[in-house]
């Protein structure tokens, strides 16, 4: 009875039409509509719209599913290159924000993967402490990326991490687990250093994973036969955020900031 005295909101009218109204408000809304003909007309209009939409498109769900949607076929890698390409780009956007990372540790690890991580962290530790020669080629030099790309054998990108006050200093060439590897170094105004390591990888595609080694930590992933490792001080949340940003930029070829907040985390409850 008390509920009847609360005014009915526009949201409640929508919820009433959509069958999403809490049961205890139903009587109040119906009482309201009985004495507010304009609202009642609106509700009737919305219902009619919904019925027409369902009448128009509902039947599609009853069609038999075409063979092209057979999941066993679709699951075969590279079966449909174009679809895979589109999906991979979107995987970066959806995946990077999809909240998997906290669960990365539960995934089974492969030896190659651990080696990649170990090499990257070793290089990180060695060069971040280097005062005079942390890099070989400076960020301002045009040949930095072409040179490292050619040596590593893949088109490399150094992600823009200025949103985290990280300025790219430059990069260097290193021996990696599968041939040459590239190490890019970033620095904050306070002198904190992060590195971004790229190497060919022969392990399967993975989600991002977090590893620690003393006071340094790394987040790594493998995509399209390339392994990437973001290393920095062992502050888990911050490092993961930076790695996600790098991941989005590398894998999606899109600006990192504009794609944020578009996809909700989908963690188990």
């Amino acid at each position, binding site marked *: 009875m008390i509920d009847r005295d609360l005014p009915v909101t526009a949201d409640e009218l*929508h919820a009433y039409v959509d069958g999403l109204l809490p049961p205890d408000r139903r009587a109040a809304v119906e009482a309201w509509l009985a004495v507010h003909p304009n609202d009642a007309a609106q509700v009737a209009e919305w219902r009619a719209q919904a019925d027409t939409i369902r009448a128009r498109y509902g039947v599609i769900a009853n069609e038999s599913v075409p063979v092209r949607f057979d999941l066993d076929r679709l699951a075969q890698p590279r079966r449909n290159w174009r679809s895979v390409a*589109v*999906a991979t780009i979107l995987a970066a956007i*959806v995946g990077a924000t999809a909240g998997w990372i906290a669960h990365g540790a539960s995934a089974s690890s492969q030896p190659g993967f651990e080696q990649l991580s170990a090499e990257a962290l070793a290089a990180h530790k060695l060069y971040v402490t280097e005062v005079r020669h942390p890099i070989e080629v400076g960020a301002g030099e045009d040949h930095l990326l072409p040179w490292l790309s050619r040596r590593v054998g893949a088109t490399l990108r150094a992600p823009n991490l200025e949103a985290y006050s990280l300025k790219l200093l430059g990069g260097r060439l290193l021996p990696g687990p599968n041939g040459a590897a590239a190490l890019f170094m970033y620095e904050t105004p306070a002198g904190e250093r992060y590195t971004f390591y790229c190497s060919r990888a022969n392990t399967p595609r993975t989600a991002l994973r977090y590893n620690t080694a003393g006071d340094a930590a790394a987040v790594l992933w493998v995509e399209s036969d390339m392994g990437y490792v973001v290393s920095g001080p062992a502050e888990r949340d911050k490092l993961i955020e930076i790695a996600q940003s790098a991941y989005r930029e590398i894998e999606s070829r899109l600006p990192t900031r504009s794609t944020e907040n578009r996809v909700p985390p989908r963690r188990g409850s």
Partner: protein
Amino acid sequence: MGGFRQGVAATVPALRRYARALTRDAELADDLVQDTLVRALRSEHLFHGGDLRSWLYTILTNLNRNRLRALARRPTMAAIDDNDAADLAGPEAGSRDIERALATLADDQRSVLLLVVLEGLSYREVAEVQGVPIGTVMSRLSRARMQIKDYLDGKRPALRRVK
């Protein structure tokens, strides 16, 4: 593993329905669904529980958004020409009208309306799919409904005759 794939397979009819209504183009819709499925299968390791259906709607919605962003540089061919169907009557005309009315909506508004009305998602689920607060969902839903009404009112000869 099998459960995941079965769950995805069970959602295909609904995804096709949503994609068709979203794009109003059968071929494009099925391409979107296929891309969504490929993406979902490859990203199984990224799915950690929760509602599989909502997750798939999220992927599809984002794929579509991305497609539109890619198209934004080119003029799109939206069939909003009123002349040819204005004299049709009966259920055919009704479904054509609603198609055109949907075409006039902003994409996020259309997506909200379809997820609620056609796919039966709750407002909270739609908010998750779109990555926006519930208040935004409600205002998109409200604007979508108003605009469809305006469009249909403007089109209906019967209403004009009444005046």
